[in-house]
């Protein structure tokens, strides 16, 4: 019984891991200027390292790899949107003033 509970909590933790890329994808609808570049970069580097870690362990954890690939895509997309806004849109805004 205790072992089944531990496995269930472990599964719940793995499911919770997926909420990180889901939250990031949900934020793609927000304004680019609200993106925090420091935290986004931290999450991008974190996912890159854990992509490597997921396949470095034996046996490899392909579900964890998929989770961090999804998060990597989400974070890099956010960084791209922020960078584009920083370079182009904010310049236009300052030109308007």
């Amino acid at each position, binding site marked *: 019984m*205790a072992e089944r509970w531990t496995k269930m*909590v472990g599964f*719940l933790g793995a499911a919770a891991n997926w909420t990180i890329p889901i*939250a*990031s994808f949900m934020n793609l609808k927000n304004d680019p200027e*609200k993106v925090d570049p420091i935290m986004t970069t931290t999450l991008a580097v974190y996912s890159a*390292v854990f992509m*490597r870690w997921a396949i470095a362990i034996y046996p490899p954890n392909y579900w964890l790899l998929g989770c961090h690939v999804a998060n990597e895509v989400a974070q890099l997309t956010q960084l791209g949107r922020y960078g584009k806004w920083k370079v182009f849109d904010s310049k236009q805004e300052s030109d308007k003033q």
Partner: protein
Amino acid sequence: MNALRGLLNKYTGNQIVFSNKYATTFFEKFPKLAFLNNVTNLAPMMKWSLSIVPITQILSGTKLPENIDVYQASSLCATGSIWTYYATLISPQNTGTRMLAACNAAMAACHGYNIYRRTKWEKSQIIPIENKN
């Protein structure tokens, strides 16, 4: 899936991050940095960064409550909470499991505090209806 496994096969069980000649030369020149080339050392450091970065932002005041992302903070807080509890269930209980619990507890705590800051800020934005009688 088998094609993917074949592609990733050279990385399976391989903890060295970079193996090319430039990396080898670099880490021979700077042996004290060689521990960074092992993913089992890098991964916990990156996990801790998910707590250290937001704590630094809280202490320095560079992250204003209105810029806190509730979705992100909630998912990181929930993930940290569950893995903290999980770390108390698994055997053996040693330094590794205690560090796992501490790391995830720190992550849950600082992102939980961010949620609190955001919630408090949102309440302060509610302007009471002025009585114009």
